[in-house]
């Protein structure tokens, strides 16, 4: 037994990669249907969106790209379903260049295919503008100065949804789908905090520790943290009767849970192996 544990220390890393690949692929092909129970931060985000006054305009920024799509895109889909189900006009913009395509894909699926909404009246995609936090600071003064035209090349002053929207003070809620910089932190610093506009965000797992203090201090209303929280949000809108669809994040959660269990097992075995080896070395 001791020899086996000592040998664990020198296992080829490719064996570990292979095991992780197998434990991720198998539940994707043969789903187990493990339950998804919403956590408090996800419920807070859901409740904050639920509490937006009827008909109020919402600003949603798609600040992620294909590299983080598996984590954030399911959240975007679920949040858009929630917003459109409640009948909120949604103004979409992007601070990441490839966020433009993420936004287009999500809006095509939810706004056009599922809810049959009208572009320019029920929602608009303002597109991408380079400038990071300077753009956020800019729209606190004027949308038109920063986004003269939307992503389709239409002057934004000609769009019904942008009527009466001069700057960020004319939106009731900010939702940021963030994968890094610029993202949730910049939206808090330059828009939500100084203008006292309620805000929530969907984040990659790796960002959660950085953003969570803003949730605890009340600067942000809940957080959708990584793929598990995306699955939780999908469960919440399903329970509220807004959709029957399982959602992409929910169907991936079995693989996520099993992979975590195996990684924990590796860490435990690695530590046992380390201690056994150290004990043997002390002995001789």
């Amino acid at each position, binding site marked *: 037994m001791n020899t086996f544990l000592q040998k664990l220390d020198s296992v080829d890393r490719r064996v570990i990669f292979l095991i992780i690949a197998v434990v991720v692929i198998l539940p994707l092909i043969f789903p187990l249907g493990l339950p998804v129970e919403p956590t408090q931060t996800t419920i807070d985000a859901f409740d904050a969106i639920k509490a937006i006054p009827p008909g109020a305009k919402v600003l949603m920024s798609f600040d992620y790209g294909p590299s983080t799509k598996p984590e954030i895109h399911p959240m975007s889909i679920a949040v858009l379903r929630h917003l459109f189900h409640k009948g909120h006009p949604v103004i979409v913009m992007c601070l990441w260049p490839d966020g433009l395509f993420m936004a287009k894909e999500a809006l095509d699926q939810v706004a056009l295919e599922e809810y049959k909404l009208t572009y320019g009246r029920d929602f608009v995609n303002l597109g*991408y503008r380079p*400038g990071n*936090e300077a753009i956020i600071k800019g729209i606190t003064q004027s949308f038109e100065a920063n986004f*003269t*035209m939307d992503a389709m090349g239409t002057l934004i002053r000609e769009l019904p949804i942008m009527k009466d929207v001069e700057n960020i003070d004319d939106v009731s809620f900010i939702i940021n789908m963030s994968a890094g910089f610029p993202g949730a932190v910049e939206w808090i610093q330059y828009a939500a905090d100084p203008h006292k506009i309620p805000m929530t965000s969907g984040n*990659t*797992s*790796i960002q959660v520790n950085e953003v969570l203090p803003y949730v*605890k201090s009340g*600067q942000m209303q809940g957080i959708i943290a990584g793929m598990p929280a995306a699955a939780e949000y999908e469960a919440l809108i399903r329970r509220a009767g807004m959709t029957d669809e399982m959602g992409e994040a929910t169907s991936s959660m079995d693989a996520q849970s099993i992979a975590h269990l195996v990684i924990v097992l590796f860490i435990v075995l690695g530590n046992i192996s380390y201690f056994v080896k150290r004990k043997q070395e002390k002995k001789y």
Partner: protein
Amino acid sequence: MEHSILGAWVAAFLTLAIFSYLYNDNPFYKFAEHVYIGVSAAYWGSIAFWNQIVPNMFGRLWPHVEDPSTLEGFNVIWYKLYNIFHFISGNIFPENGVYANHDQNLTYIIPFILGIFMLLRLIPSIGWLARWSLAYVVGLAAGLRMYGFMSSNVLSQIYGTILPLHGEAGLSFWQNTGLILNNLVIIVGTLSALYYFFFSMEHKGIFSGISRIGIYFLMVSFGASFGFAVMGRISLLIGRFNDLITYSSGGYGYATLVLLLIMVATLFILSRQDPEKNTDQ
């Protein structure tokens, strides 16, 4: 449909090529890496140019005029200069100015010049001019961040840790106990972790204890960060595997399986040809 099949083959190939690095550094990985860097840089550059520089800078320096004969004064010469640009590239500089619905604003000549200065780094003899542009960027970023950081990260976060250590009216004994404990953990954690970074006094005696408590809180924080990082990476892996599984169906010509077999066979042949290179792996 043909486009989506071609896209599936390209996506499956590039994904498998990147994953192949887990086995060993190899030509497939190098090819995918170079394609990724090239495409990213070109995409970012092109989007920034057409979305920002053309409408927001050229569109303000030379806004579209319906009838050039109405131009007067300085603008007559200014638009003659534009006509030279139009002659060089009618695509970037369309006839009679850039249509972006902006009024003319000649102050934008400053960022135009600073932008040109930035590119002068490529000419070593006058590369020092790029420092002016960098100084502007650094100054702007520092000024912009100062307020946001002080307000949201310092003041609001300090305010967020000023928490009551007594119960709240209307809550049960157990609810109050939980609340008090939670607030106590936040206060002790914040103060002790901050004290760990206080180096003006030697960490001895009771201060050593406070510092040690701070380390424990920091370790818990690092552990949480590691956990979240693992969770994020597994999520991304799931995303790629979901696509690979989709592309392995007959509808996509079994793209994943065919490409996987070809890559495995090629890597096997390459490892046979140069076994010494692989011994250290």
